[in-house]
């Protein structure tokens, strides 16, 4: 029982931090926020307007508000530096490769 309770509390904590970070990112630069968060313009405008009380209320749900941006094990392997190609290339290239694949997914996520 205690274990369940802990997970629940941690999710709420993570939700709260995530929403606060999201708002901070949006207020710094709206367009870059859409790119960084993978959110639509409407959602960005909405989150920007949330009050602290609203944020606390939203964070209180027992499911995580953030979700992983990709399911492809190819991207996971690139990010964790597993060698994929038969010919090995360096870490920097793998990192750029992952960045290219993630950037290409942005408009699918938003629209």
């Amino acid at each position: 029982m205690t274990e369940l309770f802990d997970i629940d509390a941690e999710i709420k904590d993570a939700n709260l931090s995530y929403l606060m970070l999201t708002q901070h990112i949006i207020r710094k630069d709206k367009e870059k926020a859409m790119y960084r968060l993978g959110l639509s313009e409407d959602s960005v405008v909405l989150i920007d307007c949330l009050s602290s009380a609203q944020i606390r209320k939203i964070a209180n749900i027992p499911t995580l508000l953030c979700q992983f941006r990709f399911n492809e094990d190819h991207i996971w392997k690139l990010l964790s530096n597993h060698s994929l190609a038969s010919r090995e290339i360096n870490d920097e290239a793998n990192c750029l490769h992952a960045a290219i694949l993630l950037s290409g997914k942005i408009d699918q996520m938003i629209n």
Partner: protein
Amino acid sequence: MIEAKQRSVLKDKSDVELAIRLIKHGARMNMLEQETSISYERMIKLYKEVAGKSPAKGQLPFSTEWFLVWQPQIHSSLFLNIYDGFVKSCDINEIDALIKAYEMYLEHTSRCNIKVVVLTITRAWLLIKFMENRMLERMKCNHCKGQFIADAYENKKGYVCCLCNPPARAGKTTQPEAHEC
């Protein structure tokens, strides 16, 4: 009349602000002149004030070849993916999208521990022009499904990107080349 004058002052202000942002990112004179309506003399003055040095002289490297060399191709493809994301997903003008995408590109490369800036802002700007004029194409890799810059005459069928199928000597240089543009 008064209205027209007021508008031109505002336009001038936004032009100067835009030029400052571009100069800070190292934009060349040709790009600054085309993107703003500031006179050549004033632009040189502004450039010296912002950058603390005279602008580089000479023509821009008007060639699509550079974007197809291994390392530049990867960097340019990353920039283009980010730029496309901005243009497709938010209401933003071209030059703003270019600057923001360029800043995100710089963020990505620094996170990837890359010390040398391979793609300059002027090259990024040229790339957009080349794409608009269909001198280069976006090509989807059949392995990783990522989008890459390719020659306009590249065969789309069975295309595999330069990261899934790197050339033999790829990434073996000890010192990455600095590209002046």
